[in-house]
C-alpha cells in the first residue's frame, strides 16, 4: 500500500480517459490540470488501497457496499454541479468554471442529507402493475425498464451496483 507506487504514466492514462469520457458525455474536468491530476492520483491511491476509486476528498470505510455512493463519479456530482458548479472534490466543473468566468470554491458535503432520501426511495417500491421495474442510474439519472439493471450504464458507464429501483413493478 505504498502511495509512491503510483507513477505519472498511470495518472496521465486515467486523466486522459476521464477527460475523454467527460467531454463525450457533456461533463468537464477541472481546467486546473495540476489540481486535477493530483485528484486523479488520489483516485488511484484509493483504488489500490480499498479496491475501489472512492472520492479522494472523503474518508472511505474500506467497505465497498457502504461507499458505493462515493465511488467517483459519486452520486452527488450532478446535483453539486447544478448547485455549485463543481462536485465536492472539484474534479468535475461546469462551463462557467471551465471558461474561467467563475472561480471554483469548496462546497459542503451533500452526502450527509442522504439518509432522508433513502427512506423516501423505499416508498417507491410497491405494486405498480408494471411489467418491469424501472431502474435509475444514481450517477447520471439514466432510466431503463427491465428485470435487472444493465451491467454498465450505457450513458455514463457506471457499474450495475450504482442503480436503484426508481419505480417498482
Amino acid at each position, binding site marked *: 500500500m505504498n*502511495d509512491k507506487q503510483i507513477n505519472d504514466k498511470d495518472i496521465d492514462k486515467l486523466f486522459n480517459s476521464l477527460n475523454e469520457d467527460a467531454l463525450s458525455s457533456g461533463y468537464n474536468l477541472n481546467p486546473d490540470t495540476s*489540481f486535477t491530476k*493530483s*485528484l486523479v*492520483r*488520489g*483516485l488511484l*491511491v*484509493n483504488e489500490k*488501497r480499498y479496491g475501489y476509486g472512492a472520492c*479522494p*476528498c*472523503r*474518508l*472511505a470505510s474500506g467497505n465497498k457496499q457502504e461507499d458505493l455512493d462515493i465511488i467517483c463519479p459519486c452520486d452527488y456530482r450532478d446535483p453539486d454541479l447544478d448547485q455549485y458548479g463543481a462536485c465536492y*472534490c*472539484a474534479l468535475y466543473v461546469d462551463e462557467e468554471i471551465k471558461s474561467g468566468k467563475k472561480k471554483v470554491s*469548496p462546497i*459542503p*458535503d451533500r452526502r*450527509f442529507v442522504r439518509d432522508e432520501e433513502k427512506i423516501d426511495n423505499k416508498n417507491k417500491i410497491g405494486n405498480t402493475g408494471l411489467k418491469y421495474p424501472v431502474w435509475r442510474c444514481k450517477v447520471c439519472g439514466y432510466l431503463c425498464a427491465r428485470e435487472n439493471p444493465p451491467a454498465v450504464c450505457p450513458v455514463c458507464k457506471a457499474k450495475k451496483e450504482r442503480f436503484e429501483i426508481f419505480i417498482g413493478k
Partner: protein
Amino acid sequence: MAIEKKHESGTKKGDVILYALSTCQWCRKTKDLLSELGIDYYYIDVDLAIGDDQKELTEEIKKFNPACSFPTMVINERDTIIGFDEDKIREKFE
C-alpha cells in the same frame, strides 16, 4: 494513547490541529496556506491511520465537526474551520 500528529513549525498562534486526508486537494491547499502564513500547526492524515487509530481520530473530529468532513481545523480545542475556507483562515491568523 493519543495518536502522534506531525508538526510543522512556525509562529505560534494557538494550538492548531488540522485533520486531513492525504489524497484530498482541499486539504493540500489548507496545509499550503498555513505554511504560507508561517503558522505553527500539527496535522494528521486520517486516511493513513489504521484500524482503531482511525476510529479514535474520527471520534475526536466528530466532537468538533459531526459530519467528519475534511479538512477540519481545530484551534485551541475550541474554534473550528471546516473546509478550505481561505478567507476565514487568513482572517484568523493574519
